[in-house]
């Protein structure tokens, strides 16, 4: 039975791929919660479908975090010609793929490079594309398809503008299978998937081949099912509760319905085709459906099945999770209106999932995610991240040799022609105007290190105290973040502190690291030692561009694990005053680090209240008090008081 559900889910998913192949306006498919290997499998399947339907081999272009403008649009390349060589413009696949269909594969949408994001926003669902770069002037109609993967908990990191371009949404058909695995089994599976020899190519099933062949006929004839007024009303009805921004979601549903109807050789798009399309997408926000009559989607999508089976409860859509086991029945035209209208009045009904998860995802991205992040700097060490291209040089710093040679190469014929009467006319000539320097990704120049002692936070408004530093300093300066977790209950090794690093405040790991309960030990000395190491690594080591670090220490100063015990991982003596002294010694070493600003957040402990100040003195830190929560009991007591009549007092 489970296998049947699994294969049904896969069949639905494949059907979406076939319809997207027919309906060229359905270009973008976002697969949520999939592994990279699975995504490549889906891409391979789609390429096979595209090849059959479009009657030409499908080409593939992968975009990732390293994709540059040159990868996207094309570049000048040198090729051998007789004895010499020549330079040519080589367009990318995105610009020129002949009559072959093209599938763009994005394994992780949350980690896509900025040029690739901007390209997707510009090209997906657009009838016209233009390229105006480096002397090249092209205009064309973008005809490609795109499949991207993204984890649902990372959707908040992606620009809504980019997500909107992915009209089709599906959850991985293998998701439930993956969810059932234990962590070790999952790890083993991921490990297996990393094997480069593992073949992802799977032959299309007979059924899918037939669908692809049918789509080939539809594309060749150019005839599509005609959308009826009833079908349009039905599309609208799916979005009555919350009218979405723009028309894309409605158009997607209508186009998917038209594709399904065309595949079934229906002359016009019926209401049930819209319902089938909605189920494939997982859109049922407004159309609330009864749970009593349920049939599997596998059967529901076949035209000859119309009798509901009441004793089955099967996951209907590739989008719904295993928690929501609800399926709409297949209804004949007479029943449709009844089910549809009754949906809004019945109370014991359930709804399916929402495929547009970004509507409710918290925004975890830059304020303007489609622009290069702002860099505020008072330092000359600006912008030395990895190269993302070249630009005309304005001085002799950071010259790109290859970029310069490539620029000069374009003009060699002409320069040789000018100097043909000279003896050394075959020399390679570089002129001043050829000089190119690197364009580099801006790197964080600030770092915020938060050392948090989880054993002193009870009844303290510590989040408010920390927020000032996170928001007003780290976010404003686009600082990288390091959280030192001291004495957290979920620490793998209780005797040690743990450091969590993130590229900026918006990374989800920052908030996970800030959540924690008090553990059994307080390895404060180790925490301060780790903070010192992190600050030194950022300020003094390698190619780091950090010019200023702020360390915020939140502790009551009562460390109870000696530094050596933390380093050895063994505690062989009872707690004594030495542990506090160890922490003070570690603090003293931090004082000596240049360009390190330290703030101590004093939780105002009831006992040893002077310890935070002592620690601050050793650190050379300024002190900020953390407010103490007012006990709720007092508020309750206030509420139980009898109301006072103003007249009595007067």
């Amino acid at each position, binding site marked *: 039975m489970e296998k049947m559900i699994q294969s049904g889910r896969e069949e639905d998913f494949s059907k979406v791929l076939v319809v997207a192949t027919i309906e060229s306006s359905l270009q973008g498919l976002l697969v949520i919660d999939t592994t990279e290997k699975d995504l490549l499998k889906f891409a391979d399947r789609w390429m096979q479908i595209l090849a059959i339907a479009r009657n030409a081999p499908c080409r593939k272009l992968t975009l990732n975090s390293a994709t540059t403008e040159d990868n996207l649009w094309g570049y000048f390349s040198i090729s051998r010609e007789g004895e010499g060589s020549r*330079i*040519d*413009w080589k*367009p990318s696949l995105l*610009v*020129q*793929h*002949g009559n072959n269909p093209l599938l763009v594969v994005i394994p992780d949408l949350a980690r896509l490079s900025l040029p690739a994001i*901007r*390209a997707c*926003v*510009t090209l997906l669902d*657009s*009838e*016209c594309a*233009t*390229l*105006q*770069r*480096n*002397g*090249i*002037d*092209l*205009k*064309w*109609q973008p005809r490609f398809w795109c499949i991207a993967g993204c984890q649902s908990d990372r959707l908040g990191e992606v620009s*809504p*503008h980019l997500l*909107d371009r992915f009209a089709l949404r599906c959850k991985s058909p293998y998701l439930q299978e993956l969810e059932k695995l234990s962590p070790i089994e999952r790890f083993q599976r991921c490990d297996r998937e990393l094997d480069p020899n593992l073949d992802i190519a799977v032959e299309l099933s007979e059924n899918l081949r037939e669908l692809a062949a049918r789509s080939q006929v539809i*594309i060749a004839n*150019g*005839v*599509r099912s*005609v*959308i009826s*007024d009833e079908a*349009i009303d039905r599309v*609208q009805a799916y979005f009555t509760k919350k*009218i*979405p*921004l*723009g*028309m*894309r*979601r409605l158009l997607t549903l*209508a*186009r998917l319905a*038209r594709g399904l109807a065309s595949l079934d050789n229906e002359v016009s798009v019926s209401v049930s085709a819209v319902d089938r399309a909605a189920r494939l997408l997982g859109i049922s926000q407004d159309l609330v459906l009864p749970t009593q009559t349920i049939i599997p989607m596998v059967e529901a999508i076949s035209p000859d099945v119309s009798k509901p089976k009441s004793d089955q409860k099967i996951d209907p859509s590739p989008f719904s999770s295993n928690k929501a086991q609800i399926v709409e029945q297949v209804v004949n035209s007479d029943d449709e209106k009844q089910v549809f209208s009754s949906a809004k009045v019945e109370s014991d009904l359930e709804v399916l999932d929402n495929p547009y998860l970004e509507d409710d995802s918290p925004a975890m991205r830059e*304020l*303007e*995610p*489609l*622009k290069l992040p702002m860099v505020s700097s008072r330092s000359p060490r600006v912008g030395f991240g990895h190269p993302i291209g070249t630009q005309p040089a304005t001085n002799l710093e950071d010259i790109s040799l290859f970029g310069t040679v490539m620029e000069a190469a*374009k*003009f060699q*014929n*002409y320069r040789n*022609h000018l100097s043909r009467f000279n003896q050394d006319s075959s020399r390679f000539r570089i002129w001043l*105007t050829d000089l190119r320097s690197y364009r580099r990704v801006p790197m964080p120049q600030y770092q915020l290190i938060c050392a948090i002692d989880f054993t002193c936070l009870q009844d303290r408004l510590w989040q408010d105290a920390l927020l000032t530093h996170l928001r007003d300093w780290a976010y404003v300066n686009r600082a990288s973040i390091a959280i030192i977790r001291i004495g957290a209950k979920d620490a793998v090794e209780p005797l040690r502190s743990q450091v969590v690093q993130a590229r900026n405040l918006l990374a989800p790991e920052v908030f996970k690291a800030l959540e924690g309960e008090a553990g059994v030990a307080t390895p404060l000395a180790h925490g301060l030692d780790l903070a010192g190491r992190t600050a030194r690594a950022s300020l003094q080591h390698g190619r780091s561009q950090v010019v200023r670090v702020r360390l915020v220490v939140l502790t009551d100063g009562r460390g109870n694990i000696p530094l050596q015990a933390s380093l050895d991982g063994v505690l062989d003596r009872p707690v004594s005053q030495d542990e506090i002294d160890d922490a003070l010694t570690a603090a003293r070493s931090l004082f000596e680090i240049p360009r390190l600003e330290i703030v101590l957040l004093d939780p105002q402990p009831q006992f040893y209240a002077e310890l935070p100040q002592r620690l601050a003195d050793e650190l050379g830190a300024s002190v900020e008090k953390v407010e103490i929560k007012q006990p709720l009991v007092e508020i309750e007591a206030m509420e139980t008081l009898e109301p006072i009549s103003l007249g009595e007092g007067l």
Partner: protein
Amino acid sequence: MATSNQEIKVMPYSMMVGQEDLKLALELAFIAPKIGGVLLSGDRGTGKSTLVRAFGVIANQKQPITLPINATEDRVVGGWDMQKIMKDSTFERKEGLLEQANKSILYIDEVNLLDDRIVNIILDVSSTGILTVEQEGQDEKNKQIDFCLVGTMNPSEGGLRPQLLDRFGLMVEVVTEQDEKTRSQILKNVLLYESERFVDSKPLTNTAREKDRQKASELLKARELFKSHVVDDKLASVCAKVAQAFNTEGHRADYIMALAAMAHASLMDRKSPTAEDVLRVARFALQHRQRGGSLTWNEERELKVKKVKEELNLSAA
């Protein structure tokens, strides 16, 4: 396959349903080129880009010259033809997009994502009307350039610098159509157009293209009529009164409002503009020129316009 001059068919302008303000602003900018351009800011998926492209076809018989957000400077102001240098060793200048857009529309999709360097170039040329290129061995001096700048943007991805905002004569805030009937018609038209794209018989598209031709001739007629209009004292006073009510910066708002009002009167086939014309277009000219940089148009601002209208009625009485 990409080619340099591929003509791409877009949905006919007459098939576009709704977004009446957007259409009106584009038509006004065509009738009165001195308006300078239109900024369309709003929700994604509202057909902003499609509408601009379709309008370009009826206004100039071709799609507007499009400046993509990753364009390099040599393609904006013009540079050497690289293909000719590499193949034939000959230096030949290739016109930039600003020159190509002369006397027509320069369209920038996602204008708020444009690099600052390119924005500065466009600002220079659009404010002076003169293009001068003296770089990489080029010497193009004082070339007269006059284009209608049309930009679309999604404000959630960032704003525009005030200088660039001011270069757009009019601004329209594009919102998703809320009326169910309009939305149904949009769905129907888009799907019908798509269905006809791949077949020989195109009755609906052909009818719409015929309507487009009629619309184009109406616009040309309005453009001719516009030339006969003058800003009289009455019109100037109404424009000044509205601008004063909004406490706008500078005098460009008054001037653009007068031009737009005259264009509106021409579009309505009226000999002279009235206060009604001014009030109809006031929002387009004022929205992006409010003190404090706000781009939104709320109830309070609408009430201000109504108040001016009442005052004008009273004084007329």
